[in-house]
């Protein structure tokens, strides 16, 4: 297993510019590149795989530059969104392909293929062709094919986005389990923030060719540094306020920001607690399974609050016109 380092990478294509100053994926870590389509996450993955070359900068595996190495000399495993299984080969042949390329003896190939198929739970389907498998099974074959060569880095390019929701959730748990068991350095590309939060050690959020922020899932969720990260990971309240003497206030709702001047304060709807009182007007509310999302007016601003139903100090049927709010945790966004 290796540490993957991207340094001063620049890649321009069709008027789009990808620039990564530094991104380090630690040995054995599961890192997700998360961002909307067109943000450069797949291009980044393809550069690590060796399908594309950066215009400038270095890609290092354990400190060794790999820029000049073709994909077949990088010792990587990759799983594509559309699986890319060889349609003219059986499951066994697909998984054995990489081992045959290494010239391993037949008995060893057989042993390793069995091991890989067992890991992904496909024992018994060796002689099927890809078209005879379900989407989920095809994805498992693709995973086995990538893992069986014992790659130093596992690359996954939106591997679950062609599957339906239930299978997606189950497979993502399995990918995580297998990755932990094998301790393999893994880079995962997705545009689904929920998936990223559930599966990653760390997430790198990308936006129009830049890495906006790298961090642990909860860190990013509760302490985003930019508005983009805040909004991409979930519903957000962002208040732009004038702070005086280290405090920024919206009517009676005050935040200790520790500095003065214009600040942008961020907090999640679930950080907003509701009490009886009259500082905020209930503009509207929406019922979700077991929860309630309220739209509250304070002065000329609107904030969102989300609570479990049994946390409210009143029942929904007796929703008052005005309530009090308290924000338990917040962060100050950079400009």
């Amino acid at each position, binding site marked *: 297993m290796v540490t993957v380092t991207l340094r001063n990478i620049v890649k321009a294509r069709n008027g789009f510019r990808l620039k990564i100053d530094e991104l380090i994926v630690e040995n054995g870590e599961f890192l997700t590149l998360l961002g909307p389509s067109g943000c450069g996450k797949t291009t980044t993955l393809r550069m690590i*795989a060796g399908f594309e070359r950066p215009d400038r900068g270095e890609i290092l595996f354990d400190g060794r530059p790999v820029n000049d190495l*073709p*994909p*077949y000399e990088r010792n990587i495993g990759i799983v*594509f969104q*559309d699986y890319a*299984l*060889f349609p*003219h080969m059986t499951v066994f042949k697909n998984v054995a392909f990489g081992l045959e390329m*290494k010239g391993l003896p037949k008995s060893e190939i057989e042993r390793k293929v069995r091991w890989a198929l067992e890991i992904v739970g496909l024992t018994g389907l060796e002689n099927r062709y890809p078209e005879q498998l379900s989407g989920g099974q095809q994805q498992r074959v693709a995973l086995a094919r990538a893992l069986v060569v014992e790659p130093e880095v596992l690359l996954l390019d939106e591997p679950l986005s062609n599957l339906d929701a239930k299978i997606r959730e189950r497979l993502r748990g399995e990918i995580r389990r297998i990755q932990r068991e094998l301790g393999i350095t893994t880079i995962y590309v997705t545009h689904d923030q929920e998936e990223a939060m559930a599966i990653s050690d760390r997430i790198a959020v990308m936006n129009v060719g830049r890495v906006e922020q790298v961090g642990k899932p909860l860190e990013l969720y509760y302490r985003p540094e930019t508005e983009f990260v805040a909004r991409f990971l979930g519903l957000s309240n962002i208040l732009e306020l004038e702070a005086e003497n280290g405090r920024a206030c919206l009517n009676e709702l005050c935040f200790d920001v520790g500095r003065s001047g214009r600040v942008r304060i961020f907090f999640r709807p679930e950080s907003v607690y509701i009490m009886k009182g009259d500082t905020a007007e209930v503009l509207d509310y929406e019922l979700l399974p077991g929860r309630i999302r309220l739209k509250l007016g304070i002065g000329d601003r609107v904030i969102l609050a989300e609570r479990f139903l049994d946390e409210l100090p009143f029942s929904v049927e007796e929703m008052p016109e005005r309530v009090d709010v308290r924000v338990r945790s917040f962060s100050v966004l950079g400009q």
Partner: protein
Amino acid sequence: MKLGRGYLILTVPLAFLVIFFYVPLVSIIKTGLWEDGFTLRYIASVIQNDYHRRVILFTIAQALGSTLLTVALGLPGAYLFAKYDFPGKRVIRAVLTVPFVMPSVMVALGYILLFGKSGIVTDLIGRDPGILYSWKGILLAHAFYNFPIVIRMVSSLWQRVNPHYEEAALSLGARGFSLFWRVTLPLISPAIFASAMLTFVFSFLSFSIPLIIGGYRYATIEVDIFTAIMTLLDFKTGSALAIIQILLSMAFMYAYLRSLDAYARREEQRVFRKPIPFRRGDWLSLRGLATALYSLIVFIFIVSPLLAVIYDSLRFNGHWSLEWYRRIFSTEYNPMFGLTTLDAIRNSLLFGLATVVLSITVALPIAYALHRWDFRGKRLFDILAMLPLASSPITLGLGYIKTFHGTPLYYTAWIIVAAHTVIAYPFVLRAVSTGLKKIKPNIFEAALSLGAREWKAFLRVELPLVLGSLVVGAIFAFAMSIAELGATYMLAKPEYTTMSVAIYKFLGARQFGSASALSVLLMAVSTAGFLIIERIGEEVW
């Protein structure tokens, strides 16, 4: 991928194209435009000559007429194929492949046997229908060859017209003809245009059909060049005509390739509408009757020349007999072409096989390079590689005579194989290129990521996946080689006479029985090819 040292694989194909296509081409241009310096004298004298001018205009006019007839005949079929599932659809679809592999000498013979002075149709209706030795016969034969192309291309696109477009238009009040004219037609027009252009190019360059069923009055440029060289030994006029023909056909071919691009882009849509199944009662509706009638016409149109040939081969002096077959299989020396008929059969098969091998050798590396690599001048390279498609057998024959006459190569069979390869290889190239395009690029990348080098990924993954296309391309090459008449006739020494040439010589000597029997054998070989294509079922044009 960048072009590395891999360009070495292009050495053989490029050398072949230069020696056997571009050098002969230049030699024709030199003959036609050079005499103690550059001169337009021969071009001018061709254009000023009434006969040649009429030939040029007729060539364009008959190509235009053939195209209109072909499209008119093909469009209803395209509609039926795209919209409906009807009993017999599979049979008709299979029958539509037949013309592609049927040699034109044989079809011309079929037309003679149907419409000639003592032809089957002539006997039936009691008078000469006036089709043979007129422009009508030429148009009909060209439609025979090309209307299946129209059906295939147009129906393939028609199926992909998302029904929502038409439903949206219906909901907005469009119906019947205005729905077709305003919505459907613009959506399928790239297919109509591309197939029409292809028909036009084929008809423009057609040789055997106008030669045999047009006669001298209805000669095309191709026939005119042939006569100038083979009968009048006038290489200057022949070359001038060839230059005019090349310029025109290059322009038409360019238009075709452009229209094909537009067609291919539309064809990438993955929408497929479900054909509406025919129920039993539907046959009694107007639509059902029209379908039945159309299927019948298609069937008769395609099968009748073939049946006429088979029938004639079995008739000897007014009764059923295998006499013609006995004669062509006898080991008697045939004074007309200086060897036994069996030798001609053997020649055809050997040239066909050699053409297949050589075509693949030339086409495969080029297809691969165009598919895999990006390099400067790629577009130009693509055009130069496809240019042989715009050349004609007669021009090629002329170029070979000018270039290779006197060299040892000229007296071997390889000169014929080379000509056949230049004619056939673009079809292999197209087939393989189309096949390669259908493979998802990720498949190749997956192989690389698993440690396969580029050539290994090609051999183990891509080649097996294009094998079907390659086989279809190879069969086309084989069928074109054994059907080829013009270049072979010009270049072949008597001992290299092929079946096509033998049939043409039998025709010239009015020995229809022998011609028919030999044609039936040719048909059998072609049918074998047809069956394999049906089996593999790849579309290549």
